[in-house]
């Protein structure tokens, strides 16, 4: 889960890293108060969990309410990067004398962390890293080590920093690392980390990604979330992973991410297009499957369904019951084929056949795809 800038900055502040004074606004009504609290001028920043807001005009310095109203009007009902703009962060303008880049990020390959720092902030760090690898400091941090501020001081010393700037940077780094670990973050990036004209070091932006699986540890925090659309909300309610794909005609219900992707690949290969992708996860119940059948057909473009299951943790009989119930309730009958192997597969086959639902009794997803292809051709 990618946090919104305002929430990321709230975390940074808790971790002991300075952030600009700011207020979150959901409408232009708050502008007069914000301007007076921030000293007459403010930087307005649209709040969406993605980047490149500056280029899109989503960040603007205003010096009066009128300019602020214009900004709100400009963004009313608009989206950026696929996210609807619902709030705006108003911040004190900063007298910046230097920009840096600083982040702590998961190194999935080795199961440890990277501390990344660059004297060039506000830029695309991956780009800088490719073009000028010498300008980007990237140090591995051992998760089993007890990492203290002096470790960061030594790292930054070797990188040429000294004096009070060294202290401010190593303090920010130590706090960022400590917070990153405590919050179970996948990424904690400050880009840019700025030095103001008075020497203060401050986070001018915050990009923090929290591990969804660790949310239970942060339940007390109240983070802004992207409004889910109706189908995503329903999928969450059922307890499945649902991904909408572009304008396809075949809906996929599959157990396991790999098998789902393989099914998708085979549908494309057969010249069809998947409409969506519903992964059941490990805990199949008949109710979960019944609701899944309905959910995948809510995509209007879907004309057929492939159900592709293996019964490992799952009982296939439960799945069959759910399929039967789902199909019986369909208002818009479409071709549906089931491929299922594993626990209680014979009972599953029997029940489906009893209700005239076609079953592929092999491990060949291709056969299920071919069956659907024939059905769709017949239907033309």
């Amino acid at each position: 889960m990618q946090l919104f800038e305002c929430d990321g900055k709230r975390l940074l502040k808790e971790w002991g890293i300075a952030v600009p004074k700011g207020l979150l606004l959901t409408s232009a009504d708050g502008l007069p108060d914000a301007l007076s609290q921030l000293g007459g001028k403010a930087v307005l920043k649209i709040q969406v969990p993605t980047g490149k807001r500056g280029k899109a005009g989503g960040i603007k310095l205003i010096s009066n309410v009128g300019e602020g109203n214009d900004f709100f009007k400009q963004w009313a009902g608009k989206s950026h990067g696929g996210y609807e703009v619902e709030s705006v962060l108003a911040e004190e303008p900063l007298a910046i004398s230097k920009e840096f880049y600083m982040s702590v990020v998961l190194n999935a390959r080795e199961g440890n962390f990277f501390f990344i720092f660059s004297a060039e902030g506000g830029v695309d760090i991956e780009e800088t890293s490719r073009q000028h690898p010498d300008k980007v400091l990237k140090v591995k941090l051992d998760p089993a080590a007890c990492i203290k501020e002096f470790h960061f001081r030594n790292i930054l010393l070797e990188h040429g920093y000294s004096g009070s700037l060294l202290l401010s940077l190593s303090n920010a780094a130590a706090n960022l690392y400590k917070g990153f670990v405590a919050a179970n973050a996948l990424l904690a990036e400050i880009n840019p980390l700025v030095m103001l004209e008075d020497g203060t070091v401050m986070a001018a932006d915050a990009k923090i990604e929290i591990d969804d699986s660790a949310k239970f540890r942060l339940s007390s925090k109240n983070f802004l979330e992207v409004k889910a659309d109706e189908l995503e909300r329903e999928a969450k309610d059922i307890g499945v992973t649902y991904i909408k794909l572009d304008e396809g005609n075949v809906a996929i219900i599959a157990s396991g991410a790999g098998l789902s992707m393989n099914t998708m690949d085979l549908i494309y290969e057969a010249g069809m297009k998947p409409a969506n992708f519903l992964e059941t996860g490990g805990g199949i119940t008949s109710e979960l499957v019944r609701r899944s059948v309905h959910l995948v057909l809510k995509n209007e473009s879907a004309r057929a369904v492939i159900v592709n299951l293996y019964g490992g943790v799952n009982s296939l009989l439960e799945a069959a019951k759910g399929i039967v119930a789902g199909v019986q309730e369909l208002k818009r009958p479409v071709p549906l084929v089931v491929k299922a192997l594993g626990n209680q597969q014979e009972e599953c086959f029997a029940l489906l056949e009893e209700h005239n639902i076609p079953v592929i009794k092999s491990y060949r997803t291709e056969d299920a795809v071919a069956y659907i292809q024939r059905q769709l051709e017949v239907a033309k």
Partner: protein
Amino acid sequence: MSILLTKQTRAIVQGITGRIGAIQARWMLECGTNIVGGVTPGGGGKEVHGVPVYDSVAEAVKKQQANASVLFVPAAYARDAVLEAIDAGIGLIVCVPEHIPVHDTITIRRSAQQKGAWLIGPNTPGVLTPGVGKMGIMPANLFKPGRIGLISRSGTLCYEVAGYINEGGYGQSTVIGIGGDMVRGSDVQNVLSEFDQDTETDMVVVVGEVGGVMEEQVAECLKHMHKPVITYIAGQTAPAGKKMGHAGAIIQGNEGTVECKQNALREAGALVATRIADIPELIGRAYK
């Protein structure tokens, strides 16, 4: 011989008195797995399917000389349960649960490395050696004894691949679900190296996915392998930026695409199957 799960394995089930733990224990027993005990704190003295339950892993090790453990515990408790197994000297730990926080995985991975234990998973269907047994949730009836090593990030996809391998007249020495998360307890290189040294394995099939770096790691270690490696990677048509069910399956920028991975593998000398159905033919070619 086979790898990790062998005739010497004396396995316990952590979380055996839970609903899923109990069912899976039965299925593991039914396919012949040498389950010597279960562990549920506070459940000591009970029996599940005739298997004695202990209050701690250390107790099961002491009383049953257990040397392997498979876990069916809620994600929030998995870290401490794995640490308990490592602390008790268990050498093979199969961590089935999904949705374990990545930072927890990092902790247990590091701890297993320090103690020299094999940690398989998390988010794994487990480890299965046809004819010997299984630790995890793989349906045993989908596999056949044979001389092909099988490593997969995805559980269900590996079942599908096993079907094709069986159809081709081959079977599996050991099947390893290496885990679907971003960070895994064990590196694929080490598992490949075990297969390379195993006298009952002739070659290895690796089933990958979009996202992550496992396939690149396979490519990097191929120069040390003596046996052929065949790969298949799912998700050729996956859109960028979306998490495809597995936490590890996400394409970021140009990285993690199937094409990238296939190129790296081809260059390193792997036999690359673009369709699962091609795998048996590649096995045949490797045998020539």
